[in-house]
């Protein structure tokens, strides 16, 4: 798993490449938490290069989203692919989060 961050407009874009699974989820969660602790409020997770996510990864997302809500912030997503999209659909995450087809759409 590789994580890159960059700022565009008022959003912090977090791009994740590879796999978020039971082994890598703690590091993913730690990264999100340190960004939230630094005061970031609008996080966009770009998953265009994410091949896989399991329940541990979704748990990290939910825990971070709950914390962001407390801070009046928001977590949204762009460019979900095949298996990741399917997992979001089954878990109902597609309905509780804003998901955009492209990063440009998310920044509008």
């Amino acid at each position, binding site marked *: 798993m590789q994580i890159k961050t960059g700022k565009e407009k008022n959003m912090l874009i977090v791009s994740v490449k590879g796999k978020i*699974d*039971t*082994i890598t989820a703690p590091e993913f969660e730690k990264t999100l938490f340190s960004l939230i602790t630094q005061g970031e409020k609008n996080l966009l997770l770009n998953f265009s290069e994410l*091949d*896989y996510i*399991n*329940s*541990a990864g*979704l*748990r990290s997302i*939910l*825990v971070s*989203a*709950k914390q962001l*809500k407390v801070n009046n912030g928001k977590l949204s997503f762009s460019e979900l692919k*095949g*298996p990741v999209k*399917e*997992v979001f659909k*089954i*878990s*109902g995450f597609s*309905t*509780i*989060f804003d998901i955009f087809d492209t990063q440009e759409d998310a920044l509008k």
Partner: protein
Amino acid sequence: MDISATITIPAKLEFLYESVDFVSSCAREQKFSNEKISEIALVIEEVFVNISKYAYAEKNDHDANIEITCKSVETKGFVIEIVDSGVPFDIMSVREPDLTSDINGRQTGGLGILFIKKLMYEVQYRREEGRNKLTLFV
């Protein structure tokens, strides 16, 4: 022709990738699409992690193993059997999390078992001779 392959590995998280790779390579031989193989890998990960976390109270028990069998049965297609000798645990008895709650109300657990049930065609659980036997019909 019916074929079958079995692996027995310690029920410890450091053996997770070994279990996933074993089943993925069986699935690849069955000519499943990459997307389907990824879904199968996800299900195996969720089952393996559950067993490694909860099935065995004594973590260093030498018998704390997981046995995984991949079978291709002419009448039933690709079948995966996962057996452990830990505490009885019937995943079919676990209630689905409420998927309609908003972010604040949403519980953080229960998704792994949901994926196992939703991504497989059929799931059966049996307690047999002191062992949990989970059968996944892909």
